[in-house]
C-alpha cells in the first residue's frame, strides 16, 4: 500500500496540491513578492504604481552602514539571548510538569502557558511600568527602602529578559507535548538494560525531545528577532535598535523610506530562511515517531528533596511573567495621577480608582475592538488549523511531487517580520480584485499568513509522531482514504490539532504588527487599540485596555480549554487513546 492518498490519485493527481499551493501563495508569497519588488525599486508598489522602471540595488547599501550592522547584530543577540532564556524556562517547566512528581503539576502547566495570555506588547508596557529607570514601581520601591540600586529595563539585558519570559511558553508547549507523548518503550528498554535514570534522561529522553527543543529554539529565535512591539517599547528608550524597530522607523519616516525598509526585510528574510532550512534538514534526517499503536505512559522522574524548591522556582517565574505585570498594569489603570513618587502614595485614600477601567469597559472603542478581536481570532484559528493540517498532510503523508514546495511556502512567514508581512498584505489585498480590503477578513488573512509556520509546525510535529501504519491499516481494511483520515488520523491527532487551534486563537488574539496597516476604524482589534493609546501617550487608557484585554484572552482560553479538554478526555474507551496522553 502506497501512502499516496486516493484523493490525490487519477487524473486529478496534482489538482488538490496545486490548489493548496495557490492558496498559500496568495496568502504568503504575493505579499512577499511585493515587498521584494519594493526592495529593488525606487518607488513603493501600490495599485496603479507598479513600475519596474526604476530598479536599483541601492536600497541594500543601508545594511552596510554602521547603524544597519548594529541593528542586525543587536537583533541576533536579542534572538539568541531570548531563545536561550525561553528554552531554559520552557523546558524546565515542561520537564517538571510532564515528567516529574513535583507538587502542583497541574498548576505548573498553567504557569507554563499563562504568559501566552499576555500579548508581548502588553508585557512590554507592564515591564516598562515595573522597571523603567526613574519611574518604574520596582525602582520607586528600591528608592523607598533606601537602596541605591536602579534596575534599567530599557537595555539589552532588559529586552532579552522581557522577550525571554514572554516567549518561554513556546518552548514550554513544544517541549511539553514532546515529553508527554514520548514513547515509554524506549525509556523502559533503557531501564531494563540497567541504565540509571540520569543516563536514560541523557541518552533517550533528551535525544527524543531534541526535535522539539530545536524546533522551539529556532521558533523563539525567529519570533523574538523579528518582534516589534517589545523592541519598540523596551529597546527604543534604551537606544537598542533592532532590525524591526529600524524597519518601523524607516517606514514611519517622512516621507516613508519603504524601499529601504523592504530591503532590510528581505535581508532578514533570507537569513532566517537559511536557518530554517538548516533546522529542517536536521529534523528530516531522523525519524522521531514516538506515538505508535502500542505503548504506555512515560516514566515519572522522582525529584526527592527537590520537589518543592523546583516548584518554587517555577512559581517565581509565574510571579515575574504574570503576577507582577498584571499588578503593575492594574495599578497604572487605577492611578488617579500618572506620576508616583513613593509606593506608599498608592495606598492613600483616593489614589486608586476603578473609574478608568469602568469608562474603558463601557467605551465603544473597547467593545468594538473586543468583538473584532474575537471574530478575527476564531476565524483565523479555524481556517489556519484546517489549512495547516492539509499542508502538513501533503508534506508528510503523500508523495506529491510538490510537497516540498508546500512546506517551503508554509514556513516562509517565519522568516518575515510580521510588520513587513503586514505591509505586503496591505499592498496585495489592495491589488487582488476581491472586496476583502477594509473588512475583517483581511485581518483574518493576516493572522493566518503570519502564524502559518507555527500552525504548520504544530500539526507537522503531531503527524511526525503518529505512526502512518495506523491510517494505512484502516485503508487496508477497506476504508476510503478520506474515511481513514476522518476516523483514524484526525481523532488521533486531536490533541495536536486542538493545540494548534488554540495556538492560532491565542496568537491572533494578541497580534499587532501584522494588522497595524490593515485595520480601519470599523475593524480595530484590541491590540491595535492598546498600541494606538500607547503611541498617543494615553498611558492610563492603554493600561486599562491592557488589563481588560488580558482578561478577555484568559476567558477565551478558559472556554477553549474547557471545550478542548472535553475533546481529549483520557477516559474515553478508546484503546489507542492511552498512547497519547
Amino acid at each position: 500500500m502506497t501512502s499516496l492518498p486516493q484523493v490525490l490519485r487519477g487524473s486529478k493527481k496534482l489538482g488538490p496540491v496545486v490548489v493548496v499551493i495557490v492558496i498559500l501563495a496568495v496568502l504568503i508569497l504575493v505579499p512577499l513578492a511585493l515587498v521584494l519588488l519594493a526592495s529593488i525599486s525606487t518607488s513603493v508598489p501600490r495599485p496603479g504604481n507598479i513600475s519596474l522602471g526604476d530598479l536599483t540595488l541601492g536600497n541594500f547599501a543601508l545594511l552596510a552602514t554602521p547603524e544597519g550592522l548594529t541593528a542586525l547584530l543587536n537583533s541576533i543577540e536579542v534572538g539568541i539571548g531570548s531563545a536561550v532564556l525561553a528554552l531554559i524556562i520552557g523546558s524546565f517547566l515542561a520537564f517538571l510538569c510532564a515528567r516529574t512528581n513535583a507538587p502542583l503539576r497541574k498548576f505548573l502547566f498553567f504557569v507554563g502557558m499563562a504568559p501566552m495570555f499576555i500579548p508581548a506588547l502588553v508585557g512590554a508596557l507592564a515591564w516598562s511600568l515595573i522597571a523603567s529607570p526613574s519611574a518604574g514601581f520596582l525602582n520607586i520601591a528600591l528608592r523607598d527602602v533606601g537602596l541605591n540600586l536602579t534596575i534599567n529595563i530599557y537595555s539589552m539585558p532588559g529586552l532579552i529578559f522581557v522577550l525571554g519570559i514572554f516567549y518561554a511558553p513556546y518552548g514550554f508547549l513544544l517541549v511539553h507535548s514532546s515529553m508527554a507523548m514520548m514513547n515509554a518503550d524506549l525509556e523502559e528498554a533503557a531501564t531494563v538494560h540497567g541504565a540509571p535514570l540520569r543516563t536514560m534522561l541523557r541518552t533517550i529522553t533528551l535525544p527524543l525531545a531534541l526535535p522539539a527543543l530545536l524546533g522551539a529554539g529556532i521558533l523563539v529565535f525567529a519570533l523574538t528577532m523579528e518582534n516589534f512591539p517589545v523592541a519598540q517599547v523596551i529597546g527604543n528608550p534604551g537606544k537598542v535598535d533592532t532590525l524591526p524597530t529600524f524597519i518601523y522607523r524607516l517606514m514611519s519616516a517622512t516621507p516613508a523610506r519603504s524601499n529601504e525598509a523592504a530591503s532590510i526585510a528581505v535581508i532578514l528574510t533570507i537569513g532566517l530562511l537559511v536557518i530554517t532550512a538548516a533546522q529542517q534538514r536536521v529534523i528530516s534526517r531522523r525519524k522521531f515517531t514516538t506515538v505508535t499503536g502500542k505503548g504506555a505512559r512515560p516514566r515519572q522522574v522522582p525529584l526527592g528533596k527537590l520537589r518543592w524548591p523546583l516548584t518554587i522556582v517555577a512559581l517565581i517565574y509565574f510571579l515575574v511573567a504574570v503576577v507582577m505585570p498584571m499588578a503593575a498594569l492594574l495599578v497604572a489603570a487605577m492611578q488617579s495621577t500618572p506620576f508616583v513618587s513613593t509606593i506608599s502614595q498608592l495606598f492613600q485614600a483616593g489614589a486608586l480608582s476603578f473609574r478608568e477601567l469602568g469608562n474603558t469597559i463601557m467605551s465603544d472603542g473597547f467593545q468594538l475592538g473586543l468583538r473584532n478581536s474575537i471574530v478575527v481570532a476564531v476565524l483565523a484559528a479555524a481556517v489556519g488549523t484546517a489549512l495547516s493540517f492539509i499542508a502538513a498532510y501533503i508534506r508528510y503523508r503523500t508523495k506529491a511531487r510538490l510537497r516540498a514546495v508546500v512546506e517551503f511556502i508554509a514556513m516562509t512567514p517565519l522568516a518575515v517580520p510580521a510588520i513587513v508581512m503586514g505591509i505586503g498584505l496591505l499592498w496585495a489585498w489592495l491589488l487582488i480584485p476581491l472586496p476583502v480590503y477594509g473588512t475583517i477578513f483581511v485581518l483574518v488573512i493576516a493572522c493566518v499568513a503570519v502564524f502559518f509556520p507555527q500552525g504548520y509546525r504544530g500539526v507537522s510535529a503531531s503527524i511526525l509522531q503518529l505512526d502512518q501504519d495506523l491510517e494505512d491499516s484502516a485503508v487496508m481494511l477497506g476504508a476510503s482514504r478520506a474515511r481513514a483520515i476522518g476516523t483514524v488520523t484526525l481523532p488521533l491527532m486531536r490533541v495536536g490539532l486542538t493545540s494548534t487551534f488554540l495556538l492560532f486563537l491565542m496568537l491572533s488574539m494578541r497580534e499587532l504588527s501584522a494588522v497595524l496597516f490593515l485595520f480601519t476604524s470599523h475593524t480595530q482589534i484590541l491590540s491595535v487599540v492598546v498600541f494606538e493609546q500607547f503611541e498617543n501617550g494615553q498611558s492610563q487608557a492603554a493600561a486599562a485596555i491592557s488589563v481588560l484585554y488580558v482578561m478577555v484572552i484568559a476567558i477565551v482560553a478558559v472556554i477553549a480549554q474547557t471545550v478542548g479538554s472535553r475533546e481529549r478526555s483520557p477516559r474515553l474507551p478508546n484503546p489507542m487513546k492511552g498512547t497519547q496522553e
Partner: protein
Amino acid sequence: MKIVTKAIALGCGVALTLTLAACGAGGNPASVVKSAQKVQTKSGLVINGEQIADKATYDKARTQTLSLYSGYSAASEQVLVDAFTHDTGIKVDMVRLTPNKLVERVLSEQGAGKLAADVIRTSDYRIAKSMEDAGVWKKYDVPSVSKFAALSIDGGLFTRMFNSVYTIGYNTQLVKKADAPTSWADLVSGKWKGKIGIVQGGSGGSTAALNRFMLSKLGPDYLQKYASQKPVIYDSLGAEATALARGEIAVGTVTISGTNISATQDKAPVTFVVPTEGVVSYDYYLGLASSVKNTAAAEVFMNYNFSKRGQKVFAQIGEYPARSDVAPPTILGIKLPPVGSKLDYRMETTDTVKYSADDLKTWNTVFGYNK
C-alpha cells in the same frame, strides 16, 4: 485542567465584578472644551449666531456618518470630534494614524480606488502635497475663507485650520517652577543632561518645523548641544508625553495641546513654558477627499472647523486658530504669545519643501539616528 480553569475563571470573575461595580462611580473626565453658547437648528445649523450650514445641507448631513482620516493627535482630534458631534448631532468615524502612516494608507487606498475617507486631516505640507499629486483632494471653499490670507491652500484643495504649537514641557513633580527651563538655551546648558527627551526628527510636520527652528534660530551648533545632553529619543510625541507624565524624563519637547489635555483630562503633573526664544507652530490641513461620499456631512465638518466655534474649540485645546479673528486663549494659566508675533515661529509651506529633507538628514547625523 480543572484547577487552572477555575483559577482563571475566579480571577476574571472577581476583576470583572470589581470593574463593573466601579462603573457606577465613573464619570466624564474634565474636558478642555467649553460648551457652545447657543446651537440653533431651525434654519440650518447656526452656532452662536454664525451660520455653519444651510437647512438642506444640514438635514442631509444629519442622516450621514462622516468618515474622517486624521493625522492629528488622537486625544486632540477626539476632543474636536466630541465637540462637533455634541454641537451638530453628526456622527464621525475616525481613522487615526500618525501623518506618515496616514499618507501611506491614503495613497494605497487611493491607488486601488478604495479610499474610504470623506475628509482628511494632516500636518506637513509635503504630505498634503503628495496626496494632492495623487489626486486625493477635492476642491472645496469653506465660507469666508477668502477673507483670510493664505488659509486656502493650492487653489482650495485643502484648508489650513489651525497650527499646533511645539514648546518645552516639564514634569511638575520633578521640577519646581523656579527651576524650570525658561529658554531653549537652558535646555542644553547641561542641567538636564540625561533627564531630557525629544521626538525623532522625522515624525511629521511637527518635528520638521522644530528642526528648522533649531537650525535657523538657535544657532548652528544647537542640535549638537542638544544631542550632547544625551536625550531619550522617542518615536512619537505621544510616547514622549507619557514618559514625561510618568517622570521617566523631567523635561522635553511637547505640544501645548497635548500637555493641556494630559494635565486637564488625565491629571498628569505636566506643564509647559513659553521659552524666551519663542514657540514653534506648524500647520494642520483639512480637506475633502476626492472619494467623499457623505458630502453634506463633510461640508458641515469643514465649515464647523473653520467657524468661530470650531476655531475656539481648537484654541481651548491649545492650538493657534488659523482665523486671525479668534484669539489664542490662556492654557494652564499660561498666556500664549500672539499668533505671528516674534515669539511664534511658523514654518512656511515653501520652507517645508525647501528644507525639510535636508534638515532631517542633518538631524539624523547629529543624533546618530535613523541612519
